[in-house]
């Protein structure tokens, strides 16, 4: 299990640009590269392209690590966001046409959600944030099926609105509405739990 405090510590050591920063960065790489490669591969599909993204992502982490704020940001989520954004850009520029290969989710939405993600409470100090993952999982389950499908496909594979429309064989406007309503409903549902928990 990755320890967020250890990852934050390594990010700070990397940002210091001292003798020893390279070792900290190397340790960071060995701890996080497998996860980040998995994230990239979900989005770009091809292994060699995913390794390209992993390389670019870690280069970006090395260059922008001084912007990482350990007080506010979660270290792993911070790195995942950098790599996912890079993967989405690469996917767009390489015209990765795999739009009809996402039947895993279509066939078994709940199983896929539970295999892909870890919904157990996090290690955050704040109780409502610790339990947020469970609420998100529950609220995803309450969404209308097309809304849930659009959100998960977009998140897991980095599909654009246009790619979602092609995959789901629906007009672009309909898909945009699903995404927007899905996010909206998810937010209201989770925030209701948070309000109730206080």
């Amino acid at each position, binding site marked *: 299990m990755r320890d967020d405090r250890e990852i934050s510590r390594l990010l700070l050591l990397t940002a210091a640009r001292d003798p*020893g920063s390279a070792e900290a960065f190397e340790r960071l790489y060995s701890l996080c590269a*497998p996860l980040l490669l998995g994230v990239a591969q979900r989005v770009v599909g091809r292994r060699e392209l995913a390794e390209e993204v992993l390389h670019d992502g870690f*280069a970006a982490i*090395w260059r922008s690590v001084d912007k990482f704020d350990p007080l506010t940001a979660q270290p792993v989520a911070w790195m*995942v966001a950098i790599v996912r954004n890079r993967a989405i850009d690469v996917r767009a520029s390489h015209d990765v046409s795999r739009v009809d290969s996402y039947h895993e989710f279509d066939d078994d939405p709940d199983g896929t959600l539970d295999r892909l*993600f870890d919904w157990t409470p996090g290690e955050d100090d704040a109780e409502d944030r610790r339990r*947020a993952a469970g609420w998100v999982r529950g609220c995803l389950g309450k969404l209308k099926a097309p809304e849930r499908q659009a959100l998960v496909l977009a998140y897991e594979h980095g599909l654009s609105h246009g790619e979602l429309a092609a995959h789901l064989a629906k007009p672009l406007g309909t898909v945009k509405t699903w995404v927007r309503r899905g996010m909206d409903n998810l937010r209201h549902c989770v925030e209701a739990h948070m309000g109730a928990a206080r």
Partner: protein
Amino acid sequence: MKIADNPRLDALCGEYLLGTLRGAARRRFERALREEPLVALRLDHWQRTFTPRYAKMIEAQPSGKVWKRLERELGLDRYRTPWHARTGFWRGWAIAATAALAVAIGLAVLQPGPEPSQPIATLAGKAESAQVTALLSRDGRTLELRAARPVVAGPTQSYELWLLPGGNAAPISIAVLGNLDARFALPPALVGRLAAGAKLAVSVEPAGGSPTGAPTGPVILVGDITA
């Protein structure tokens, strides 16, 4: 208009995290993230609350090439501790080896079973991440190294694996390697000599191996042979 005042701020945060915010809209949002603290704060709330953690099953092991390229392109050597700098020479060997030995831990466990190889030594260095397991085939003729993380030599360097027979005997070269995940035949003269009491060590050498037949670069890993 500032994005922080935008009634769609939550929707923008959500679509940014989802990845459906693209092109100019995403660039505007990223600029706002840098310039408007309220936007960054709101995104942080979204990130903490709504971003699920990926499960372990999605992980995949990258090839060693990725790290090697990063190391070269980012010029990481500039930020290594002096211990890694190529300043150690044979005179430094004793000091380096003693220091490294102090932290070496023998984790190798003999396991009966059908495995063709069994661990005979765990080689460790100062960097806690650097750990290499040495395995010897049943017939004692094939040695295998498995690195806990990819360890790949730069273009001007090689790793050299040494047998330290013990006592005052000089180190004997076993192999010159480009990376520390390797499997190779032992030199026939060394078959049977990888036994308890001796040690294995890895030094950094010029490409192609030590020019003198003895370790000339820093010793980065060392471990006792336990079988």
